[in-house]
């Protein structure tokens, strides 16, 4: 049993805080919550929407249809009413009753409660819980928690506004069928927060980013955690500075990361190559949106994978991780730092607007600091001068940091083992081979793709944030008798074609990707893992839903 509630209105009308309040309220009730946002690249006007989907079982996808539409203005109702489910109900923020909606003057109700129009969300939320057949307790508790810092009066006014909203739709209690609380975790996270907590607990101490939607959520979340974890979160002058500063921090022994989206990442390409050459552990978080150029800043896409895999001039090892859900976002963020330090090479953590803004209630993430191993060198042998780029069998050299007994020398020019400049052809070959040998070690730690629920004749091949919608789509398709499974990759680079090929042999592969060309499937083909595939693309800027995938597969 699931119910989809959609809040829509003009940017600046409070769509987000309304949706956030509902998501928190439902999570605190023990309902499973899956909340997504759709917003425009502007501060005021236009139509934004916020879906809060609730269920009695864990949810993996948003829904196309709306069971309860709450429109903060008439324009947004007119736009969204086409997506109303058959038995759907609309609440409109208006004084004019008599339409095919429940009229609710949210700001007037808030003012009647002695509050300001800004408390309209509380009145609206009161009406929503009533129409869904719930009582006011959880909403009141959430409002008390949210406003307790602002004083008793503000709390009381919000509680009263919620009660007034609840009573304003008297007679319509339970008009929309809604799931019963199911003991779901009360801890609600969005993707950005999960990534930020992962980075903070892993030991990141320097965050240096130029703001860019949709990566700024992670930057903001890290800034919010900076005092708790002792992190320096500094705004970069530009994206060129970011990886260079990270290299400096890593050189001096401190884990550091930056956050960006496609255009900013493009500016980082030279610095990424520097980290490869200096063999420094840096982590770049890349949140994708549709390109090329400025593209669609507030929308979602998976269009930068091929670029990320090949970004940076020259040849050097690089790792790309792409979390599929919120727990994986936390785990893989930590893992990104572990791998970067173990192999002394850059790691790109890839997500997108869909995953960073996605909210779900999951078991509490462990938020105590649990620093990763920096894999620093033990004391060097007496009498032997330290060499930062010592040639080793696995390609990983002992890494010291300045301030100890050894001089650490790193140069972006071709260098010999000691780090000083060299133009000797044999040294060039030896050092490049050394760096590239790290790829063998990285592939030994390749994260196996998840097959859900079990191998089948047909494969929905996906990576990163498409995990949830694909998994839900597999359930829908199997319910129709289709012999299909999902194969999801949380690690997408580097790829060992020979090791992965058996996954796909003799099976029909449908690549479900948020781009127009099947970038990951093409990388698999290039690696020799995959020969033929059909493509199920989406590149309109909107996230995949289970229903979208189901429809496309069946068509």
């Amino acid at each position, binding site marked *: 049993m699931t119910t989809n509630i959609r809040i829509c209105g003009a940017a600046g009308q409070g769509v987000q805080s309304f949706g956030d309040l509902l998501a928190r309220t439902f999570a605190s009730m023990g309902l499973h919550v899956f909340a997504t946002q759709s917003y425009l690249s502007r501060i005021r006007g236009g139509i934004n929407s916020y879906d809060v989907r609730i269920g009695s079982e864990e949810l993996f996808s948003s829904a196309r249809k709306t069971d309860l539409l709450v429109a903060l203005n008439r324009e947004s109702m007119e736009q969204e009413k086409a997506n109303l489910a058959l038995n759907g109900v609309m609440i409109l923020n208006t004084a004019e009753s008599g339409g095919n909606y429940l009229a609710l003057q949210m700001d007037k109700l808030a003012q009647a409660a002695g509050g300001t129009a800004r408390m309209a969300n509380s009145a609206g939320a009161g009406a929503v819980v009533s129409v869904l057949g719930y009582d006011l307790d959880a909403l009141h508790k959430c409002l008390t928690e949210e406003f307790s810092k602002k004083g008793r009066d503000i709390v009381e006014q919000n509680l009263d506004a919620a009660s007034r909203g609840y009573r304003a739709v008297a007679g319509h209690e339970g008009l929309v069928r809604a799931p019963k609380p199911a003991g779901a975790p009360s801890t609600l996270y969005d993707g950005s927060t999960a990534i930020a907590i992962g980075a903070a607990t892993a030991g990141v101490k320097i965050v240096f980013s130029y703001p860019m939607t949709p990566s700024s959520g992670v930057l903001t979340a890290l800034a919010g955690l900076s005092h708790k974890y002792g992190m320096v979160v500094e705004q970069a002058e530009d994206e060129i500075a970011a990886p260079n500063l990270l290299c400096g921090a890593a050189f001096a022994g401190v884990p550091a990361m930056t956050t960006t989206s496609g255009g900013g990442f493009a500016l980082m390409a030279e610095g990424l190559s520097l980290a490869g050459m200096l063999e420094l552990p840096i982590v770049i978080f890349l949140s994708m949106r549709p390109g090329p150029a400025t593209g669609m800043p507030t929308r979602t896409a998976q269009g930068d994978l091929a670029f990320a895999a090949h970004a940076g001039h020259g040849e050097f090892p690089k790792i790309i991780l792409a979390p599929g859900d919120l727990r994986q976002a936390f785990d893989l963020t930590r893992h990104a730092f572990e791998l970067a330090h173990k192999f002394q090479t850059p790691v790109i953590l890839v997500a997108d607007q869909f995953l960073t803004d996605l909210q779900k209630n999951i078991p509490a993430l462990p938020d105590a600091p649990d620093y990763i191993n920096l894999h620093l060198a033990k004391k060097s042998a007496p009498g032997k001068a330290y060499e930062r780029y010592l040639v080793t069998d696995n390609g990983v050299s002992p890494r010291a940091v*300045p301030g100890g007994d050894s001089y650490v020398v790193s140069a972006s020019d071709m260098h010999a083992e000691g780090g000083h400049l060299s133009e000797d052809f044999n040294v060039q070959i030896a050092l490049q081979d050394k760096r590239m040998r790290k790829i063998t070690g990285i592939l030994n730690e390749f994260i196996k793709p998840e097959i859900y629920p079990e191998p089948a004749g047909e494969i929905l091949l996906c990576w990163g944030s498409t995990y949830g919608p694909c998994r839900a789509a597999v359930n829908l398709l199997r319910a129709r008798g289709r012999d299909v499974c999902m194969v999801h990759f949380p690690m997408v680079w580097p790829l060992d074609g020979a090791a992965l090929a058996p996954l796909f042999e003799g099976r029909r592969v449908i690549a479900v990707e948020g781009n127009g060309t099947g970038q990951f499937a093409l990388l698999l083909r290039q690696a020799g893992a995959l020969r033929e595939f059909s493509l199920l693309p989406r590149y309109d800027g909107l996230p995949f839903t289970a229903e979208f995938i189901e429809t496309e597969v069946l068509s």
Partner: protein
Amino acid sequence: MSGANENSAIETAWCPGCGNFHILEALEHALDTLGTDRRRLVLVSGIGQAAKLPHYAKANVFNGLHGRALPAATGIKMANKKLLVLITSGDGDMYGEGGNHLVHAMRRNIGVKAFVHNNQVYGLTKGQASPTSEPGFVTKVQVDGVLSAPFNPLALAVTLGVSFVARSSAVIPDHLQTMMQEAIRAKGFALLDILQPCVTFNKVNTYKWYRDRVKELPKNHDPRDRDQALAAAMTWGDEIPVGVIYRGARPAFEDAHPILSGAPLVNAFTQTPP
């Protein structure tokens, strides 16, 4: 000339008579005079002939990308504020390719010392104009002479109120050494613009040209007075003032920052480096 770094003895890639030799020598003397613990010294540079200097000194070395010495140095200083982080790089690297970083490093007033070898020409790429080349300067690329106004890094530094702003020259090595010592002793960001002849590509701003013009600031110059400092920074012609032009009152970034003002970030990790 051989380098003093214990890792290797390196032949320099500089032309005979290059001003860089005097700058390297002044730096070694300044560090020795101050008794600097070389293991806590990081020399940072970008790319260019000047940017090779760290390889010839006894120090930790971060020789990064062209134009990006400042962000790298900022990252090193943020990570471990106990390190002496000193940039030795050229005018193309610091004032051209890395211009935006210079603006923002000075806004932060991070405790990094930037020694800029300013020879008003690009050496490594063989003789093109630099951001500080004078109008009319003819090169194989600027065949009609430079039209753009020369960049004035010192005036910019004064207006941003950075901690230490000075000018010296490779043609007056004793003065240069004193300025280096003053810059290292100062808290916050230090910009030391070092006028330097390029014997190969700059036939205008020669040793003689600089010797005829550089003149120490008058004894009564008050480096705490911004108007006086700006006037000195803007003076260029028959007389070019050298010395401590400005001492700003702003705190260093690492002292003002709520997190950085505590223990060095690197201390959060218990592993002891070798």
